[in-house]
């Protein structure tokens, strides 16, 4: 398994407009004898390399990911091309400075934070997802496969698809791509804030250092446990994949995994962290209350929107639109809408408690 991956060319077309940089492109396809005609000159940039490859792309399947045609119509292409990477560093990430690495990691956290916490854009995305899914359920509810959906060239459909793809594919991808570094940062900073606030309160009654460390450790572990329980709840409540009449499974496509839930929840915790940070400096209790409740509403709104988006993606056709999965679509029971409240309610309780801890000092 080492080094063999299946690559989707929907992923590829995102990258192919970034990778204008001239470099030494090297790749080897498994099970495909290397034709010498595909060898690029080492100094050739992508612009020069691309037409050369397009000529050969019509009869060989594996060059389809550099084919401009695949950029236009990703769903028609067959997915799951096995690619084995073979790469020398042409003076890239292996030689960068430590600061660059740090900066990139933090900026990726910030990037994801922005895409998760901006409610207006999220709302726009939700609307788009709804519109597309309604469109599909009205026109193509009888069709089992997206292949056939795409082959009839409906103009309106294709424009909807394009706007949809343009808006949300990248961001939904970003949301679903979990990491635990962001959560670590947020939970750590929030428990430090709570420790500071509460120990300041206690020190008027005489608190010593052991109590401070106790507060810190208690809040740190409490937040982690709570996040774990909340994401377990989301997993348990969210609709499971069921066998349909034609023997396919519903909505097994975008089911949030445990770590995805953890990641999303802790990113939505960020406004509350901000509220806690602000209540360090504000001594007026009423103002603190107002700020914290605003932050609380913000984070609840964001998590609601994200859950709504993810659950709406379970509708017909949308999943295959986002993911370019041909032949995986099936009808949906649309349980997601009803269960969002069940997912949100515990989140409201816990986040409310956390922001209340910041108000009472």
């Amino acid at each position: 398994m080492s080094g063999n991956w299946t690559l989707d060319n929907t992923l590829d077309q995102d990258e192919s407009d970034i990778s204008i940089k001239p470099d030494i492109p090297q790749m080897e396809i498994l099970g495909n004898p290397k034709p010498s005609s595909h060898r690029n000159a080492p100094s050739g940039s992508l612009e020069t390399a691309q037409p050369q490859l397009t000529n050969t792309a019509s009869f060989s399947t594996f060059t389809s990911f550099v084919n401009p045609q695949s950029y236009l119509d990703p769903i028609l292409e067959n997915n799951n091309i096995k690619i084995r990477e073979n790469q020398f560093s042409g003076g890239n990430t292996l030689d960068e400075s430590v600061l660059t690495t740090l900066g990139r990691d933090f900026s990726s956290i910030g990037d994801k934070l922005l895409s998760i916490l901006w409610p207006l854009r999220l709302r726009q995305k939700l609307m788009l997802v709804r519109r597309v899914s309604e469109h599909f359920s009205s026109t193509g509810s009888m069709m089992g496969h997206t292949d056939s959906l795409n082959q009839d060239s409906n103009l309106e459909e294709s424009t909807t698809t394009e706007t949809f793809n343009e808006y949300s594919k990248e961001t939904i991808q970003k949301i679903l791509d979990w990491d635990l570094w962001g959560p670590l940062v947020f939970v750590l900073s929030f428990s430090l804030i709570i420790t500071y606030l509460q120990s300041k309160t206690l020190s008027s009654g005489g608190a010593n250092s052991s109590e401070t460390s106790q507060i810190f450790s208690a809040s740190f572990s409490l937040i982690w446990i709570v996040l774990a329980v909340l994401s377990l709840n989301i997993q348990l409540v969210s609709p499971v994949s069921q066998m349909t009449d034609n023997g396919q499974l519903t909505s097994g496509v975008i089911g949030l995994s445990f770590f995805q839930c953890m990641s999303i929840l802790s990113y939505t915790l960020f406004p509350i962290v901000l509220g806690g940070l602000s209540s360090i400096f504000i001594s007026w209790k009423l103002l603190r209350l107002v700020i914290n409740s605003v932050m609380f509403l913000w984070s609840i709104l964001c998590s609601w929107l994200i859950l709504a988006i993810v659950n709406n993606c379970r509708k017909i056709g949308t999943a295959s639109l986002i993911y370019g999965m041909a032949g995986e679509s099936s009808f949906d029971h649309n349980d997601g809408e009803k269960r969002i409240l069940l997912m949100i309610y515990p989140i409201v309780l816990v986040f409310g408690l956390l922001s209340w801890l910041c108000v009472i000092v």
Partner: protein
Amino acid sequence: MADRTLYQRLSESSHPVALLFFLFFRLAPLLVYLLGVLFTSNYILNFIITMLLLAADFWNVKNISGRLMVGLRWWNEANDLGQSIWVFETADPNRYINPIDSKVFWLFLYSCPVLWLVLGIVAMLKLQFLSLTLVGLAIVLTSINALAYTKCDKFGKANNIASNVAGSVASGFFGNVGGLVAGVFRR
């Protein structure tokens, strides 16, 4: 005497700072786990500090030490279908890899999971289940790094042989990674 030769040896390293940080982050969680009780009576605080050090060690080995000391790097990303993809990056075969750096790196890369495994067995025999979770986390994190670097090393060597024989091979988007790695890199 032995100390001095050790110092001399270590000073031959081409990345002494990276080497020191590598050693520090590898050994610090072990030391805190074993000796932390002497300094503070708060067990949970100990637990948290060890966990944070483990996370820092993971990040450091994955992102800094590997590429500076042995010229290897790996990362893992999810594609659209939710499958995880391993991406390995190896240095130019002509690049000089300092033998001291590489020896220390591989020694500690493999010995740390073993040490944690021993500590895990001890914790299991002493029925300390809370520390067992911590040791479990440590084993997972350190052995992920060990495994990934093993794969990466094998992969790089195989590639070097292959490319010496066959020359450069046809292109794809992962091949011309240059500036793209920055966009793709996630963790």
